[in-house]
């Protein structure tokens, strides 16, 4: 399987309600042009539901184009949110499983 993404996108800083609109605006052209997208989450300092929604949006959009979305470098903030909402399976990316139980 050819895993090389068409585009890479790195999130710097917060992925929250405060940055959501801006981030979506930046993601839209990428989603339009790159069916295979990789999002680097290593620099995400904080994430809330708005941030999570953007990831879901991206996942969907890529799937609609028969592409794929890969999330890499999940920062602790991201891991916590994905864990809490049980969304790790949804995205299907390999992550370090947290040592904390629910």
């Amino acid at each position, binding site marked *: 399987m050819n895993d090389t993404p068409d585009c890479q996108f790195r999130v710097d800083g917060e992925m929250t309600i405060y940055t959501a*609109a801006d981030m979506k605006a930046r993601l839209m052209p990428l989603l339009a042009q790159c069916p295979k997208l990789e999002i680097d989450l290593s620099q995400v300092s904080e994430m809330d539901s708005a941030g999570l929604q953007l990831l879901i949006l991206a996942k969907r959009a890529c799937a609609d184009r028969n592409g794929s979305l890969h999330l890499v470098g999940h920062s602790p903030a991201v891991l916590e949110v994905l864990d*809490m*909402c049980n969304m790790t399976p949804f995205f299907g990316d390999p992550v370090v499983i947290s040592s904390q139980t629910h």
Partner: protein
Amino acid sequence: MNMDQALQTLIVESRELLQDMEDGLLRIEGEADQSESVNAIFRAAHTIKGSAGLFGLDDIVAFTHVLESVLDKVRGGKLAIGSDLVALFLLCGDHMATLVNYVESGSASLSEDERLAGSALVEKLSLHLDVRQSAAPQQSAVAPPSEPRVETSAGGLVNNDNWHISLRFGRNVLRNGMDPLSFFRYLGTLGEIVRITTISDAMPPAAEMDAESCYLGYEINFKSAADKAAIEGVFEFVRDDCDIHILPPHSRVADFVEMIRDLPEEDLRLGEILVRCGTLTRHELEIVLEIQAQEDARAENTSGEHQKHLGEIAVEQGMVQPEVVEAALEKQKQIKDTKAKQQQLVRVDAEKLDLLINLIGELVIAGAGVNILAQRSGQPALLESVSTLGRLVEEVRDSALNLRMVQIGDTFNRFQRVVRDVSKDLGKDVALLISGAETELDKMVVEKIGDPLTHLVRNSMDHGIENAELRAQRGKPAKGTVRLNAYHESGSIVIEVSDDGGGLNRERILAKAIEKGIVAPNHALSEQEVFRLIFEAGFSTADKVSNISGRGVGMDVVRRNIEALRGNIEIESQYTVGTTIRIRLPLTLAIIDGFLVGVGDSSFVIPLDMVVECVEMSEQDRQALKERNYVNLRNEVLPFIRLRDLFETGGEAQRRENIVVVQYAGHKAGLVVDGLLGEFQTVIKPLGSIFQHLQGIGGSTILGSGEVALILDVPSLVQQVVNFETRAQSANRATASVK
């Protein structure tokens, strides 16, 4: 977010809620159906407690919690609300106001007295609760009564030991500052989230998706020993913004049927999620779906049958306690109410509003300048354009000024409490009637009128309304009446405080005034002048001084306050019948519609509201004027003032003079001017403090041409004329009596 700002908002909102609470308490005794007021009172206390909790204001939370518990009993019909309880609640509201004041001033804690008062109130409140409460609120969740395990689940109860929570967040949750994640974290402190499923079905395609809206829903299997109230409490602040279903352990299958029907997603999908959550077994799911299908079929067959309300069905099937249903319905109504309120109000910084009005004032002046230039140019297209512009500016001006207008009703309503407290203190039975509550006036005026009005009301009750004996003697009903009335009249707002008490005793006032040396013994005074003596500092005819009034300090301050607002007070009174005190205040303080007149080389502006008509002065009149100081206007006597003489403008009287007839407070006067220069609107620029005591001038303005025009203070001019007249009359009387 700035914490200070947030705290400020809390303080303002708490005060509003305390006012709502007080209003509700005052209303409630007279009501046949008290339920709505009780709910309103409960909501107010409850919301204050919640908000205070957010900021960690433990004193307020602790106190309000006890109050809320008692209110809850009232709300639940377990405790009747009589006048004793109302009085206790009112005192509690006062104590909470004190606590809020402490929050505002930032001081550490209450004084010893206040703390004791607070504890006393808590004691009294606790008497109404079956269990003795300590002052601290109960933070820990109450363990629910253990429920018997059910072995089978066929059509009855499900096997699930855990709670099932279904959430569908509203679009605005994130925008309102909340995050589903924080609720889950909190939920985690009450128990264990066994399984959670995120549902993102509601998310639209990327192009339409609004990054700041929330499209998420959740199905949660939650293990906890907490009770339903505690779990519901977790979602307290998002109740309005979220569809919540909470199903206790071992709920009936029917519960799930209902819930699935309520939720937007497809039944099968929901069913799958519930199974995956561990809430339902696959077998149970089949049963649920079967019952669902049966009910759907039945509903189709009996389409004419009235769709039962969810609440009714729920109670019918024994699923839910009636109280819970009532709470849900109440919540719905509350949602509607708060939504309606939210749509109606916008919180605006008063300074920003003032800035806006200032700018509009400048706009008005600039517009006048443009108008003049357009007139001069004579170009029709330009003139039309400028005319449109002028009209729009006028509308903007009116709208802006309107923003500052509030109804006086709110202020009036506060007096219910004052009257209630004072009647108790004095042992007199007094009712307060309010009319004209919708009359609007400038916000600043409203704030400043509160104190004077309070004093006048207290005065009416203390000195005006007689004691029961005397009232009976005079054939009056035992219950005294104080009336607050407000209305607009020719550019002013009039506020009246009337009572059906003993009225002013003219002789006694005069005697006292002579005694105090305020008035010379043989000075002839009109009735109005005698009445106005009560505004003199140190004046009082009270035999004894009560703690409300009688010291002779109040009325003087009242008058000064009114005059500071550019208003005036008149008194109407009939001995043994009653008294009416009438306060007149200008409607707007910033911009006026004026009528421009010329006197010599100067221009003056007369407030248009007070102009009745303009009359050209005939040669006849001019001759007559030399002999007498009034004009015959259609057989009506019209006293007049020659502005030229008054302001010593100099120069010879022109051949053509005009009279502008103005009126104020029922008196008419004529102002003799040279030219009539038309209507125009302008901003009132206050005169410097040097000119404060200038009689007859109420401000200045800048004309479109750049010149300064003085604005006439018509009330004071009219007053001058009236005084002159009355003095002339008394002089005539004096000379007549001497003869």
